[in-house]
């Protein structure tokens, strides 16, 4: 058998490798237009309603507690124990049903003038995907 002419083999091989490289680049550059989540999935995933609900409930109960504050005796002890129970309820329920960690701090006085008092408390919510922290100040008359 006549010897095969192997002279052009290198060139063809290089050409093949180059075209494979271009093909790979073309795949990368042609980005799909539907990458990522749809709008609705992003909306469902973000716990907007859970956080709003938590904020409303906690801030209402905190206001009730703050209104009971007396300079000499502090918070009303009954209301304080109720408040701690509410926070324990909320923590257990959100962990069980929403798989979320909730932490609420007791209100602490940060500022006081002659006729009003300002309180600060923190709300923390984390459901594994979204982490939410809030410092809320409430100013009430003395």
């Amino acid at each position, binding site marked *: 058998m006549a010897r095969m002419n192997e002279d052009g083999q290198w060139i*063809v091989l290089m050409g093949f490798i180059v075209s494979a490289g271009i093909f790979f680049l073309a795949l990368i550059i042609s980005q799909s237009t539907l990458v990522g989540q749809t709008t609705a999935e992003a909306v469902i995933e973000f716990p907007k309603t859970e956080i709003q609900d938590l904020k409303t409930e906690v801030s209402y109960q905190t206001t009730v507690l703050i209104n009971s504050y007396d300079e000499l005796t502090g918070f009303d002890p009954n209301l304080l124990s109720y408040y701690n129970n509410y926070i324990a309820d909320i923590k257990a329920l959100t962990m069980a049903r929403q798989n979320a960690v909730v932490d609420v701090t007791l209100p602490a006085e940060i500022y006081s003038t002659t006729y009003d008092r300002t309180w600060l408390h923190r709300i923390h919510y984390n459901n594994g995907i979204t982490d939410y922290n809030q410092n809320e100040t409430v100013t009430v008359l003395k």
Partner: protein
Amino acid sequence: MVDDAAQLYTIEGVAAGVIMLFTAFVVLSTTTIYAPGDTHLSEMQLEQMAYDALAMMDTPDSYGAESDLTHYIMTNNATYFNAGFLKYMGHSGYGLEAAAEMFPDEIQYSATVYYRDSGSGTVESYPFAQSARGEILGHEPAVTATQLVYIPGRPGSPPGNVVDNRQQIVLMEVLVWRG
């Protein structure tokens, strides 16, 4: 002298190679187009409406009053809850077709109340209300809406209930689907 006898073969080979690469490229870069059902849009609208219904029922109409949802839970009144909830979810009757599709007359739901047992620290539940076909989950996807509700004592749930008799926060969870 350069022999040009093989040029045609080479060009043929290159052209074939390009066609094959192009085909491979087209095949590998196909993507799926989302059909409307895949976008989960109807679920988002349903969940927002269900949460709105619960939130409005849990807002007292004047300062110091009891909210509707607290009242329903305390009196264990599933009938009023059903009327109130479906009023928010139902067809508003204003003739927009999208409204008819989104909120058909057949919204099914199943509402459960979760509470914390302070003795054991665990979370328990009892079923609160259901719509007409509320026990059967159809093929339509279901969404959940929850609401934290303050109640001033032990709710009037079915006899034998073991909810603590104290002021507490419970969770009302409603599973909603079209069907």
